[in-house]
């Protein structure tokens, strides 16, 4: 590795990116907009009242009992039996009620959690209407919206992971293939620059470019939503840096042979899709079936999001953090070495 070669290439790649305004938007603007939208959509919302259809052939007392005693937790409408069933099939209502207040008949889809909830709410309203004591009257309910327990606290780590994956796949993978397809790599191949120097310079410049967006997302979460960081800041920043390098290495691997934008797009999808779905970006991956768990735990994204959340919640000890870091580092190192061996200039 020769310093002047690394400097020359690094500088060029950095400038080339910073002079592409749309790329700057997609790396900074997009994740912040996403955090804002998802944070508010899932953070501030109330549970919608259950939607229930009462058939118009039932005694009026049934509708009255539900309306008066459901405490706004049920929104009842009166429909003909045929319309009511249609509304249920289309998902416009969760439950169809017929019969009488004393002996209600429920039509519902047992697979829908919303239907079960609506049935419980209606049953409770009817109990109260019949003068019975509400079994839940003595319960104490404490709403949870403390920082650390909300969806946005979960989401920030996922958004950072997603951003780093994108930076590796598109910032590196796609860009290198474009340089190959317009023969720029061939021009560089006839200079005394070594393959390793080129890859290292590319990796360095893209790492410099990839680091600010995660920090911006993190700062955004802390300032706008009060997302807490309970664990070590040093560990958190270290994991972000390691994640950047790992996904960058994966990007180089994806770009090592592909010659056209079509073929590299295929590779990028192959790598990206499973990680978006199973990597714990938007939802916890612990509830996936046992069959896919080995895949879940082999993915660098899982190590990254688990480690980030563990550090942010303060739930991970040193050993667990080290395990996540090691999982990431192995994937990153293997990718970089493989890319170095497979890489072609043309």
């Amino acid at each position: 590795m020769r310093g002047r070669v690394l400097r020359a290439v690094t500088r060029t790649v950095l400038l080339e990116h910073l002079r592409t305004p749309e790329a700057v938007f997609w790396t900074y603007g997009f994740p912040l907009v996403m955090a804002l939208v998802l944070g508010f959509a899932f953070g501030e919302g109330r549970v919608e009242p259950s939607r229930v259809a009462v058939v118009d052939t039932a005694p009026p007392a049934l509708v009255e009992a539900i309306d008066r005693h459901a405490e706004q937790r049920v929104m009842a409408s009166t429909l003909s039996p045929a319309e009511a069933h249609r509304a249920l099939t289309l998902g416009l209502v969760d439950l169809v009620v017929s019969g009488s207040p004393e002996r209600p008949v429920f039509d519902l889809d047992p697979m829908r959690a919303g239907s079960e909830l609506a049935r419980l709410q209606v049953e409770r309203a009817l109990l109260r209407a019949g003068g019975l004591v509400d079994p839940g009257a003595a319960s104490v309910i404490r709403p949870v919206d403390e920082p650390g327990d909300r969806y946005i606290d979960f989401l920030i780590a996922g958004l950072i992971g997603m951003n780093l994956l994108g930076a590796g796949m598109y910032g590196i993978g796609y860009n290198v293939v474009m340089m190959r397809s317009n023969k720029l790599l061939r021009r560089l191949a006839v200079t005394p620059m070594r393959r390793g120097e080129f890859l290292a310079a590319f990796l360095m410049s893209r790492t410099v470019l990839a680091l600010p967006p995660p920090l911006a997302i993190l700062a955004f979460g802390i300032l706008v939503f009060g997302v807490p960081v309970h664990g070590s800041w040093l560990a958190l920043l270290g994991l972000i840096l390691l994640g950047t390098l790992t996904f960058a290495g994966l990007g180089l691997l994806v770009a090592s042979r592909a010659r056209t934008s079509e073929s590299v797009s295929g590779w990028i999808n192959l790598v990206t899709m499973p990680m978006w779905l199973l990597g714990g970006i938007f939802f916890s991956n612990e509830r996936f079936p046992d069959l896919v768990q080995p895949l879940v735990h082999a993915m660098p994204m899982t190590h990254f999001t688990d480690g980030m959340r563990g550090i942010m919640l303060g739930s991970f000890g040193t050993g667990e953090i080290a395990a996540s870091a090691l999982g990431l580092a192995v994937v990153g190192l293997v990718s970089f070495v493989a890319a170095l061996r497979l890489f072609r200039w043309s």
Partner: protein
Amino acid sequence: MSRRPESDTGPAIRLAGLRKVYTTRGRPPVVAVDGLDLTVERGEIFVLLGPNGAGKTTTVEICEGLLDATSGVVEVLGLEWGRDAERIRAQIGVSLQDTRLFEKQTVAELCALFAGLYEPSRTVAELIALVQLEEKANTRYAHLSGGQRQRLAVATALAGRPELLFLDEPTTGLDPQSRRALWDVIRAYRDEDGGTVVLTTHYMEEAAQLCDRVMVVDHGKAIALGTPAQLIAGLGAAHVVEVRAPGLAARVEEGVLGGIDGILEQHAEGDRLHLSVTEPHVALPGILRAFERASIELDALTTRHTSLEDVFVHLTGRQLRDGGES
């Protein structure tokens, strides 16, 4: 200033029995270079001339280390690619056919990039001055014209003070003024730096104007080698008379040109007749009298010196037309 060590006196390039066969699955193999022997001496401008698909680029890219030869000997500056790749790369400069550089970098930044890859190297200011792009120094690559891009490509090729410069079709698509400007850069490199140039082109005029020696290549084989003057002299005719008249070829078939002194070769097709003559003032009166006798009305009659184009036509029976020069 050349950094050539005193001891390096061998040829710049030596190719012997060079063959390159492209094999694609499901198709018959294509022989791009078919047994080429070639020695390029140090300090000369050597031109590979031939139509598109003749194997020029393949030959040059083998010399540049971008392609592997199927068989044959390849020595560049006395070194071999298999053993001394890095040393060769440090001593050659290359301008490839239709390469694009980084779109959003300026001329000065691109020169700095390539200068950064060589040790020693020229300064950015030197490189820009060499190809006279001072006014465009801060213009981004995306906004340069075709001629400016080609000049910049040559500047990047000169960044490492190379001993050997490869230019693959450097002037294709350029206007005559840009083309002459590039010729000046190439001549200056040879004259002032003592460098060697290997250049491919399908422009006859370029070969004639620029080169010390030319190799005419067709279908992967060398069909002629020498200075332009030698090749032209080899035809034995210094001048060409071209005549145009309706249905001329048919009349020539009838033998209207029989018994005229000084015609070495004749070639007629449609309305056109192409005569090689040693001395126009000897041959022309006879030719004109023959047309008068046969009552052929001429649309045009021109005489000119024999060119490399005529050499190519003589050797292959085809015009080297695809360059748009004719």
